[in-house]
Every structure is written in structure tokens, then in C-alpha cells.
């Protein structure tokens, strides 16, 4: 039974980790866009 919860938990952990990396890449891009706008 434990394995069942670990499996479901691991699935969502993997997805959440990926989504977090996406969010971080977005914010880094946002910063770069702001820098570009400032230097104009």
C-alpha cells in the first residue's frame, strides 16, 4: 500500500519540480526583458 502513495507522490513531485524550473526560467527571462527595456 505504501508503494501506492509513494508512486503517486513521486509522480506529482516530478511534475512539480519541472513546473518550478519553468517558473524560474520565466522570471529570469522577465528580468532580462526589463534590463533590455532599461538600456533602450
Amino acid at each position, binding site marked *: *500500500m505504501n*508503494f*501506492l502513495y*509513494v*508512486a*503517486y507522490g*513521486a*509522480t506529482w513531485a*516530478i*511534475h512539480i519540480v*519541472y*513546473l518550478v524550473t*519553468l517558473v524560474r*526560467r*520565466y522570471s529570469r*527571462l522577465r528580468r*532580462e*526583458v526589463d534590463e*533590455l527595456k532599461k*538600456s533602450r
Partner: protein
Amino acid sequence: MRKAFPILGVLTAILLSYALYLAMLVAPREQTMGDVQRIFYYHVPSAWTAFLLFFINFIGSIQYLVRRNPVSDKVANWTIITLAVLCCIGGVVVAVVPDLKAALPEGTEPSAIGTTGVIIAIAYFVIRKYFNIDAVDALAVTTAEVGVVFCTVVLVTGPLWARPVWGIWWTWDVRLTSTLVLWLIYVSYLILRRFSSSGQTPVMAAALAVFGALDVPLVYFSIWIFRTQHPQPVIGGGGSIDPRMLHVLLMNWLAFLCFAYLVCWSRYRLEIIKREVEEAQALESLLEPRSAPR
């Protein structure tokens, strides 16, 4: 377009929760394996989603390679159409000739051959219509990355299911090994994209994707022969499925497909913005002669 995203996000979350509820509580308890079998409702949809995403990547890679040249583009278009027609003819032939019909794997209808060919052709032309050549490459990166995520889920949930049920973490059976090889190929694809510094990265990555696509059937076949010579336990066996379980399985697949769509959409937008930013940065560095030392 952007306003739809949060709404779809909420709908997908609801769908996923419902699917989880179905998987945990509504689906009947499996006789031999018990509740651990419910991992199946996450393992299988993740696998199907990963394969679908890798398939889209394959189409995108082919398109990136052939659409650079108008001649190869036309040739590819007609090849796809011809293949679809051949599949339909093949489906009819198999349905009519009893020996061939018997040779099909259990549960497959001859019409599936025709349908598969047509669906592949439709997918090819739909992608071709809505994505120009640079967008197709962005699509390739997106589906490769999200595909690897889903494939990782498959490779993690697989052993977690196998261990309590069959006592082993891993076995070199056809499906597991093919999935592992597919994962390895696409991880190397992503590493190639990251480590390649030339402007022709998309071309090389597309070539690798084509190689990978050629490879996977061979992997499947080689492990199949290996297995007939060294029989080993079959994980997740075949056979018919209880219709209530099928319903839960399909609901989970639908939920994960919606989820995958949203993740791909986000990743795709990220890729497009990233490319625009890089272009802008390159332009900036060209237009700033004062900062360069004389």
C-alpha cells in the same frame, strides 16, 4: 489566448482531482495484486502521453529537416500521403485475407492499420499548417522536454509497482527496456541541445530525433527476440481489462493529456519568448558601438 490559460488550468486541476478520486476510491480492487495495482492508473497514462509527445517531436524534427528545402518539402508531403493511402489499402487487404488477419496481434482490428496511417498524416499536415519552420523547432524542444518528464514518471512508477507485486525492481522486458532506451535517447537529445553552441543546433537535434525514432522499433524487436530466448517475468501483463477499470484509466489519461497540453503550452511560450529575447540581445550588442573599446 492568454485569458484562457487560468480557466483551463482550473478545469484541468478539477479533472485531475476527479481522476485521482476515481483511481483511489472508485476503481475496483484488483484480485491478485490488491491496491498497489492502482499505480496502473498513473503509470499507463503517463506512458501513453510520453509516447504521444515523442511522436509529435518526431514529426516536428522531420518537418524541420525537410522544410528547409522546397523540393524535399514536397517529396515529404507526398510520401506521407502515399503512406496513409497504403495503410488504408493494407487495412482492407488484411481484413479480406484470413491468414493475414490471424497474424495480427490479439485484439487488433484490421481497420486500425488504416486509421493509424490516416491519423499520422492528419497530425503531420495540421502541425505543418499551424507551425512555421522555426515554430516547429520550438515545438520539438517543448515536446521533448515534457516527454522526458512524463517518461521519467513512467520509469519511476514502473519499479514501484513491480517491487511489491513481483518482488523485483526491474526486469529487461520489452516494454520497460524500450521505454528506458527512449528516455536515454531523449535525454541525450536535450543534452545535445544544451551543449551545442552552433547556430545549427536544431538541425543536429532533429537528426538525432530521427535516429532515435528509427532505433526504438529495433530495440523493441531485439528485446522481444532476447526474451523468447531467455524467458523472464512479464510485468503488467496483457489480457482483457475490467470495463470499470478501463473507464478510470481513460479518465486519468484524459486528465493527464489536458495537464500535458497546458505544460507544453507554457514551455512553448517560454521558448518563443526566450528566442525573441536572444534576438533582441544580439541586436543590442550590434547597435552599441560606444561600449566597444577603440
